[in-house]
């Protein structure tokens, strides 16, 4: 698995565990995202089994802005994280803090952020 993909997967699980409650909606959204990223069904099952059994030991935010040099890839990664957030219909302060930190480090404008939010909300409805 490429470093960038590994980092993104790690960040997705951070997002799911952000409030220490893993909801079925988050698991469904995560499953869908992992399949979109190209993981096979068996790989997804094993990733979920491994990473949802216990909270992550390391919760430091993943430096996605360093793993994805391209602006578009950064935004795409952020949108996937937002999709997890919106899957439950409400965002907790921990998830908000994680996203805000990334937005700042990536230097996104308010307009870009709003565009990602809308896209993520659409994605979470699928």
């Amino acid at each position: 698995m490429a470093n960038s993909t590994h980092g993104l997967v790690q960040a997705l699980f951070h997002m799911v565990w952000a409030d220490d409650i893993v909801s079925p909606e988050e698991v469904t959204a995560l499953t869908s995202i992992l399949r979109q990223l190209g993981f096979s069904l068996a790989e997804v099952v094993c990733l979920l089994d491994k990473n949802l059994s216990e909270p992550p030991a390391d919760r430091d935010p993943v430096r996605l802005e360093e793993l994805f040099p391209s602006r578009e890839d950064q935004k795409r990664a952020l949108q996937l994280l937002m999709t997890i957030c919106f899957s439950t219909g409400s965002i907790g302060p921990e998830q908000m803090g994680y996203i805000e930190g990334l937005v700042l480090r990536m230097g996104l404008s308010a307009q870009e952020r709003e565009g990602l939010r809308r896209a993520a909300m659409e994605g979470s409805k699928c």
Partner: protein
Amino acid sequence: MLSRFRNKEKKAQLVDRDGERYDVSLRVLSRDLPGYRGVTLDLSRSGVQLETHGHLELGTEPELTFEFDRGELESFTCRAKVVWSRQQGTNERKFHSGLTFLPATDDERRQLSRMSTVLQTRTETDLKTLLEQARRLDPELERSYPNFASNPTFRPPPENSLLQTGPSGPPSTPPPPPPPPKERQIRPETPPRLGVFIPLSVTLEGYTWNRASGTLHIGLREDQAVHNLFFPECQLFQVLEPAADTKIEGLYSTLTSPATRKLQLMGEPSAYKHYRFVAEGGKGLIDIVSAPCRPSAE
């Protein structure tokens, strides 16, 4: 069939037998038994109660061959010592006898331990089936059970709690002042290990279980593609319901089931997981206890 297996409460024991007893009806063959056969009434890791057509001599040590009715256990043979035997009522062809196992080899001891684990899992399966029927088997229940069981700071609700049940009516004396809030007390200091439910929409394509090497491969069909999962160090593989052509709706996985705890107590070094493939409504299809699963070559 599973309803035949139920955990038996401790009762006055005529035989010094350790371990849980399970009501289970299995055929037992032996050239030392009257009619060369008997049927188990209950079974534990250390002994068995048998029904036979004749009296068994105290102190004799028949060699018993147990025939298991399901695929998860092979038939096995073990010598046992008769410690009591008596006629049941007036029926001259119905005798109950208690025997303690006399395992002579490590293999026989391992077989007895394994049998005990499988019977325990069957008992759990029964309980779960009942709970499912009551529509109470859900992730929350699975989470709260290990939470309460392992949480040393859990306290029952205070006496004047709204959760308390019983006759209601105006109290004859003024109620005592409410106790201080205990929310902080009942919150576990560390999150319990939760179970995981992984949603699926697949059917069972097939499986290969190598009992000798303890490896299990399961093929799952999703549309036209088949995906293979590998369960290493598989300690238990049990098909609860005919799973072919049944839509599998999810895979439940937990680190803390009675079966995994039992393996830990037996000194097994690996961290085992208890997996259950479930159909619609949470109906259990396949039970597996193994090391964490991983993808196998597709």
